[in-house]
């Protein structure tokens, strides 16, 4: 689009009034904000001794998990859509024929490099079977880079760990199971 495009409306900046030019009223309003925060309740948390509260776990983007279906099998169908959507290229999937008659393929290996991940949530958006989800687990630490590459078993164990506290989002959000 060029600056001369008729779709663009150009606005002129308003000239400064007397109050703005005097600077004093703005100075006072800024100082009022500072003073207000001096007396308002503190929001800073001394992590990790104190745990922050997650406002809404449904929209929080923490550690990934791989959901299980009713029979305890991994829900993922190895369609690679999360890996396609991932802007950080941190998902690596090896697909193979599934051993179950009702499913065509499943992930033989499913790895997420949590260090490379930017926690944007695109994988969750892309998943057609709601298999990958971001939990509200927020403190992710490890002693080595290898440890931070989560494989299928580890991602499934995150589900086992969080499924009671955080049921599958799809049902909560009215999505498909």
């Amino acid at each position: 689009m060029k600056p001369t495009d008729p779709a663009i409306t150009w606005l002129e900046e308003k000239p400064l009034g007397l109050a703005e030019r005097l600077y004093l009223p703005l100075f006072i309003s800024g100082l009022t904000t500072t003073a207000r925060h001096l007396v308002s309740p503190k929001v800073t948390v001394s992590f990790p001794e104190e745990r922050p509260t997650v406002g809404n776990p449904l929209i929080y983007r923490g550690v990934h998990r791989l959901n299980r279906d009713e029979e305890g099998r991994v829900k993922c169908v190895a369609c690679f859509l999360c890996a396609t959507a991932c802007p950080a290229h941190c998902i690596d999937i090896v697909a193979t024929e599934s051993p179950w008659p009702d499913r065509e393929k499943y992930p033989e290996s499913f790895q997420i490099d949590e260090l490379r991940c930017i926690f944007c949530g695109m994988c969750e958006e892309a998943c057609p079977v709601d298999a990958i989800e971001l939990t509200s687990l927020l403190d992710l630490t490890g002693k080595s880079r290898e440890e931070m590459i989560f494989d299928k078993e580890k991602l499934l164990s995150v589900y086992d760990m969080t499924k009671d506290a955080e049921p599958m989002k799809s049902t909560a959000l009215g999505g498909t199971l």
Partner: protein
Amino acid sequence: MPVVIVDGQEIEIGADERLNCIEAARRAGKEIPHYCWHPGLSVVASCRMCLIETGSRDAATGKITMVPKLVPGCQTPVKDGTVIVTESQTVIDSRARVEEALLIDHPIDCPICDKAGECLLQDYHFEHGQAERRADLHPFTSRKRDVGPTVTLFVDRCIMCTRCVRFTREVSGTGELMVTSRGAKEEIDVFPGFPLDNKLAGNVVDLCPVGALGDKDFLYQQRVWFLKREANVCGGCSAGCSIHTEHNQDTVYRLKPRENPHTNKWWMCDDGRYGWHHLHDQSRVLAAGRRRDPGRNGHGAPADAFDAVEWADVTTRLRADLKAAGRLAVAVSPMLTVEEAWMLCAVARSIDPEAFLAVGHVPTVGADETFPGGFTIRAEKCPNRKGVEAVVALFDPASRSWGDLLAHVEAGNADAAWITGGYPGPWIDDATASPFANLACVVVQDLFDSPLTKHATWRLPAAGFAERAGTWVNVAHRAQSFGQAIKPPAGVWPEGRLFWNMLGRRGLYDPVAVRQQIAGSSAALAALAGEIPATGVDLRAGQLA
């Protein structure tokens, strides 16, 4: 010249051309969607996707009379005055209904379907389908059936275009596939005990416009949108089929035929299609090495017997070794490109002006095999014998063969030998390799270790077909140029790069520059000058007149 009117646009076609409406419209830049029609197969007009409006213009009065109903574009030939309408509301509605009908029976399992991303049902639905569904559709898992050792049939994904059935009847001539049942219960199947097992079987997967036929070699390996494709030439035999090498992160995942009316038309054989696995074989020669003990007849494992040599040193030390040894004999492998062969000859002659140059071993398996559709698999399992012969003849008119070179070495007329290989499989036995034990210096440049490696002073890696860049000349004198599709494994210099550096040229190996030089210096290869079209050039073209 006959004139055809496509959506009001007049186009001229050749007087003796026999085109249908799809082909004529394509000339006018209009794509008529179609599933069942394929230029290489007979016409059945069963998918109804190419329905269009046609009519004719009276030559005398200029009055246009339209046919009152829609006709299949694939089955309707055009002649002078034919009027084709591809974008009327009737045609648009018809396409949308065909798409709707196809989708009623379709599993809609696109996320797990290997065809997703290159599926005509997806593409046409996006382009011509309705925005809203009128039927209550639910995704389901398609039934799966083994139809042959290399092909799996996903029964419910099939749209019954019968391209695969016609292919096995008309091109491969084997007729394994058939249609069973009738109406809405129609299915593709094979007769019990007669699986789809012929050397062209893989083509039915390419022909399938949807995900019904899957290649077991590629199934579940990679989503197609991750693949990058490079126009390449198959190195499996001397037919020189035009192919696309489809790869991701320097790993080849599949080969697909590339349309070329002069060589393979639309097809390729399974030998070539699956003939890329050796590229990623762990047992490949992956580093340049020079034999540690000067006695040279040590038979130890290559890793123990050879010292790794940096490539920068190979160029100088190899030259010094060969020069010190004396009379040089060189086998120019028919797996090399014309450019590489020419540079190898130039390097050899710069080391020993009297160097004995011969075309390397030409592997042959059985006899040429021609299918009823005209496709031929050649017995000669190397892609560039004609090209290498032409290049060697430039340096040495005696045009010697691998047999001549063996006799030359056996007679004790050589002190050093440089054997280039690049063969994907075993090609030489102990007895044939034994005369090389008596030479002062033997350079073996190959993909894999062979009995020759035991006698090698220098063990150099070679590049596979997708790792090369240059020109190959097929059995019918058609030269096709191609670029490097994937990088060779770490530690491997393609032959072209080594020869380029040994010639003391600066910068990166530039096959086009070498090709222009060859074309300028030889009448036989003059056709290689300039840009080579994607379908190649006939080397004899300029010499006929």
